[in-house]
């Protein structure tokens, strides 16, 4: 019997878990994938929006601004990279300037501070590589960039340290009220288990409508809206310093060009409504559109420096707003649904809000021994020479470079595997320490990381995966190693 079961270990699920771990509650997070941050949270723009885009009065507007304001402190407490680099919304025609002003006014109503419109020579001073055809822009100093992997992982780790349980590779197949509805909910998993819990938090991303609709007559409908991106080499990272949006359209904020907290340059996303909730494949047309539209803002974008491309699915609810809180006809069932942009920015505030609601419902007391800080994995690439020396002295594995492009050491990889909610796959290692994230895209380090994973997890070499069951990296041994066969 659990007090709370959270479905989904994305950024909102983990933010709620971390906030709930302040209370004396038995909390379990169920995730169908092999790790945290495997759905929408891993494939998005990695932007902490200022908050001028959402319609005033909506949940999106409220939680975006609240979440943005929490980021400085949260990133320090939980030791993940966040930079307030400022964002620019650009327009290309004089006639569009009223739309920028409208956006600025909306931002003011939402409580966004520091917004101003910039024209003329000031544009190039602010961002020298912007297109000459930019006529004006809205400057948003509170906009920022974050590493969505490390943010989600940090939240999860901190929740785990404070007693939250995580179960991966576990799909929820059915949710039903218990026979005595006062007692809560039964959750059926694909492992054939039936778990009971007093409360459920539905943070299931693109599948949140499926779970809501199992228990509530107030139906939700979530459309997976695909966004394709291209990531460019760090050599291109200094081309711009702000996040550059174009004037938003009906399906989103258009194609943006942004530096990442790790020094790469990212361009995207497209916006394509789909029905398949697993369609995270990129398309030739989508990738071409990304570059073409990105070049409208930054004409010198070097497409040849692309090191990888990816696609994510935004969980876009029909009513176009976050659905947060207890379902009216399903007591103890809390929705955290329709979390598309600005979901990443809003996640910390959503976590606080929903955790408080759940805790009140359960009349939970706060823990006295909650630990609100977490130390990340040492980053050898960014460490000073003195720090590196100290790390190697503490553990020589920090002197053994495994990923040459990103200077990731064996020590960091082992640390990533051994910590709470640790990495279990090649992608899990990559998201935590960036091994394989560089320009060779794991060509050199993959065999070495596979060996470390096998050794640390004490598993068969053939059981090492890219991202969980079904994605095994090797299919067998060579002939001379096969005992059952004569050459």
């Amino acid at each position, binding site marked *: 019997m659990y007090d709370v079961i959270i479905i989904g270990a994305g950024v909102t699920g983990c933010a709620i878990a971390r906030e709930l771990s302040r209370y004396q509650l038995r909390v379990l997070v169920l995730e169908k994938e092999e790790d945290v941050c495997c759905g929408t949270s891993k494939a998005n723009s990695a932007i902490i929006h200022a908050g001028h885009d959402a319609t005033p009065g909506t949940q999106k507007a409220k939680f975006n601004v609240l979440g943005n304001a929490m980021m400085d402190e949260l990133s320090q407490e939980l030791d993940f990279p966040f930079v307030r680099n400022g964002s620019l919304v650009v327009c290309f025609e004089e006639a569009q300037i009223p739309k920028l002003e409208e956006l600025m006014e909306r931002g003011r109503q939402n409580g966004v501070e520091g917004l101003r419109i910039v024209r003329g020579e000031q544009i190039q001073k602010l961002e020298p590589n912007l297109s000459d055809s930019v006529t004006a822009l809205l400057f948003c100093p509170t906009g920022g960039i974050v590493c969505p992997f490390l943010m989600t992982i940090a939240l999860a780790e901190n929740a785990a340290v404070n007693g939250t349980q995580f179960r991966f590779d576990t799909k929820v197949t059915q949710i039903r009220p218990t026979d005595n509805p006062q007692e809560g909910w039964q959750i059926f998993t694909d492992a054939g288990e039936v778990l009971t819990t007093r409360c459920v938090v539905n943070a299931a991303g693109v599948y949140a409508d499926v779970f809501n609709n199992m228990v509530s007559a107030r139906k939700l409908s979530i459309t997976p809206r695909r966004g394709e991106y*291209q*990531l460019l080499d760090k050599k291109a990272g200094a081309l711009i310093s702000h996040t550059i949006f174009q004037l938003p359209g009906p399906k989103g904020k258009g194609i943006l060009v942004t530096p990442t907290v790790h020094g790469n340059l990212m361009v995207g996303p497209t916006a394509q409504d789909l029905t398949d909730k*697993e369609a*995270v*494949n*990129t*398309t*030739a047309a*989508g*990738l071409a559109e990304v570059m073409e539209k990105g070049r409208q803002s930054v004409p010198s974008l070097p497409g*040849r420096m*692309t*090191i*990888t*491309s*990816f696609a994510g699915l935004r969980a876009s609810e029909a009513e176009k707003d976050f659905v947060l809180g207890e379902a009216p006809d399903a007591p103890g069932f809390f929705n955290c649904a329709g979390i598309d942009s600005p979901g990443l920015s809003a996640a910390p505030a959503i976590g606080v809000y929903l955790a408080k609601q759940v805790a009140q419902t359960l009349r939970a007391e706060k823990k006295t021994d909650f630990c609100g800080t977490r130390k990340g994995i040492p980053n050898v690439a960014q460490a000073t*020479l003195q720090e*590196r*020396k100290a790390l*190697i*002295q503490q553990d*020589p*594995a920090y*002197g*053994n*470079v495994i990923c*040459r*492009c990103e*200077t990731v050491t064996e020590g960091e990889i082992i640390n990533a595997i051994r910590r709470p909610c640790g990495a279990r796959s090649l992608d899990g290692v990559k998201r935590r320490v960036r091994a394989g994230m560089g*320009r*060779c*895209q*794991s*060509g*050199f380090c*993959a*065999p070495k990381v596979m*060996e470390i994973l096998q050794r640390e997890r004490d598993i068969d*070499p*053939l059981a090492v*995966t*890219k*991202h*969980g*069951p*079904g*994605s*095994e*990296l*090797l*299919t*067998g*041994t*060579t*002939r*001379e*190693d096969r005992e059952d*066969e004569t050459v």
Partner: protein
Amino acid sequence: MKPYDLIVIGGGPAGLAAAISAREAGVKEILILERDNEPGGILNQCIHNGFGLHTFGEELTGPEYAIRFIEQAKALQIPCKLNTMVLDLQDDGSGVKQVTAMNRQDGLLELTARCIILAMGCRERPRGALNIPGFRPAGVYTAGTAQRLVNMEGRMPGKEIVILGSGDIGLIMARRLTLEGAKVKAVAELMPYSGGLARNIVQCLEDYQIPLLLSHTVTDLHGKDRVTGVTLSQVDANSRPIPGTEQEISCDTLLLSCGLLPENELSDKLGVSLSPVTGGPEVNESLETNVPGVFACGNVLHVHDLVDYVSEEAARAGLHAAQYLKEKKRDSRDFSLPICPKDGIRYTVPQTVRPDCMDDTLLVRFRVGAVYSDCRIFVSLGDTCIQTLYKKKIAPGEMQQLTLKKADLAAASPSDSIIIRLEENVHGNA
């Protein structure tokens, strides 16, 4: 700490040959820094034969070829630090270079050297750089990664394989994987010709009935967790996929052999200017970069097809480094002639020549930009043709060479340039 005379970055075939020749030319304090756990570089995973025909007059496997250089370096007592990653190279202009490296045993190493030879090799072009659309499943490997898994670790990357790109490693791996029991279903090549050596097409594909699909590329990749298939499309003369030509091939693995990129991130930190064509440093006749006392050789300079040429080139770099260390001052009046590739010639190495500094002859290596037949290569100094070379057939996959004679450059003035160009169908046109 006293600076080393020479630090060689990389202990592969280039680094070893360079260090050996420098030592033989009298350089005393040499150190090789190697990131892997043994010297020999990529040769250690090249277990096929075909190495050494030019150098030793016999056919060796990669490891056999490497061991000859490793033993020579040992006999000459050249120290080599293994498992050591060079993190930074700096030159403050004083003539002494700073080398920052790291390993388990020594921790952080801060070394200095009067001279540096860059010999870091190259890396493979990954999927992302090719912009292949589709999912991101397990089962997409570069050919070299697959080669390491199979030849060094005894693991199979897949059972049913499609290879994109007909570079030499891809061709070699088509044969290796077939011999190991995998089914190689096709090799697709974007260009209308193969990027690999002709002998590899015959020995690795034709001998095993593996189809080579020229003017084809992968336009979709299927499978969310593990590759389940690829879509191949024919491409037009501009390498654009032709709609309607799609064919889906089921497979569990896609190998990429789509080109090698010299690995020059460290050279960049040192301020070495790089050629946009080769991706490697621009060098003069002494294989010296624009940073005095910094030399380059092997695949970090430009991608070679045969290791024999790497060894030969690296030995020259070692010799020039030794000469640099001996000569305290050089004549600043020595002028430099650019070598300009034109009409079908993609690049040359070296890119410049100082006639006064060259030996009696100078080997110039080059590649062409497409397949040409019945062609003549003209070398001229200004308007004067100083050499011609006839080739029945010439392809981008095979590195070419010619020898410049010092005597031919005697009349050169500082404003001259050496032009190398190609004319096709010289007999057809006549």
